[in-house]
């Protein structure tokens, strides 16, 4: 009986929720991007599955409810996008041009480096979604037949690294304009970067949210055309 319970949603869902809740608490307590909830939570879930000897497949199958909610979450991205559209009216076309170019540049640079290093096709495909917010990246990964787990890991790593490196790098370049910092964080570090931008200022956060949403939508429109499945 106990083994059956361990492989059912009755175990998988509370495990995910508990790990996420703990991750959020720890993140709020420490405030460092390195301890983003998804990192602590996925390590906790991994530790639990490993020590209880539960195959990943079973956990994944039992987590169907969470996957079902990813769809509406992508749709929900339209709401912050609409709320921040006014930022465009003030900064206008430079924002749009940068977001459009950045949406192509961010994955292109990473894929280019990986090509130079002679990486395999599965890695290249997963890398192409690196700067897109996770729910869109996962939907896109399904479409272009990339590995979902690898895509999710790459997106999370990119977000955390971009959010860490972005603000000091932009300051180094001698830039104080918070609109620039926000847009750059939104393009390159999606949701993690947007959360970091919101800590800096509301304007910075609005620019980041706008850049993240537009960049995600643009990539979803363009990438499948470039990468013929």
């Amino acid at each position: 009986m106990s083994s059956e319970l361990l492989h059912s949603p009755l175990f998988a869902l509370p495990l995910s929720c508990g790990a996420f809740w703990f991750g959020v608490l720890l993140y709020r307590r420490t405030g460092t991007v390195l301890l983003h909830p998804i990192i602590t939570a996925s390590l906790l879930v991994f530790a639990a599955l490993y020590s209880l000897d539960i195959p990943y497949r079973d956990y994944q199958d039992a987590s169907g409810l969470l996957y079902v909610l990813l769809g509406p979450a992508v749709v929900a991205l339209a709401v912050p996008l609409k709320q921040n559209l006014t930022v465009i009216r003030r900064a206008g076309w430079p924002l749009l041009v940068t977001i459009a170019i950045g949406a192509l540049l961010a994955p292109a640079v990473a894929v280019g480096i990986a090509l130079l290093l002679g990486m395999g096709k599965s890695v290249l495909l997963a890398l192409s979604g690196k700067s897109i917010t996770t729910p869109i990246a996962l939907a896109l990964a399904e479409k272009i037949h990339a590995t979902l787990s690898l895509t999710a890991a790459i997106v999370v790593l990119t977000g955390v690294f971009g959010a860490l490196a972005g603000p000091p790098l932009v300051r180094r370049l001698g830039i104080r304009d918070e609109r620039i910092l926000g847009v750059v964080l939104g393009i390159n570090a999606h949701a993690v970067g947007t959360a970091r931008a919101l800590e800096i200022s509301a304007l910075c956060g609005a620019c980041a949210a706008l850049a993240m949403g537009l960049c995600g939508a643009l990539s979803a429109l363009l990438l499948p055309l470039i990468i013929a499945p």
Partner: protein
Amino acid sequence: MTAPSPRELAHWVLGIAILFGCERLGSLIGKALALPVPGTVVGMLLLLVGLMVYGSVPRGLAKVSAQLLFLLPLLFLPAATGVFFLRDLSLSDWLGLLAAILFGTLISLTLCTLLLRRLLRKTDIVHNNE
């Protein structure tokens, strides 16, 4: 915490219904037209256009969306955990991947920053001349 009033509850249900409705509609349109874009993204664009036409964001929809976006890391937790179980990547694959992520992100951050600064300066000059 006070219990939500029936009115609030109706707002929430409406918000949830809008999200699921747009997702279904987006998937249907995507399939019917055989679009290369994920159906959920079509749904997101539909909702965006709808909100722009409507002019504002309904209160229930704003609440439900904010809640859902806060829970986002939980929703992709199963997918993210899977990375610890990937067996078909070698150590050199991982090192290359890390290099591509770290250097790629640094280069792209720098280029985007310089580009936007240049473009913003140009518009500022135009504004000053006007």
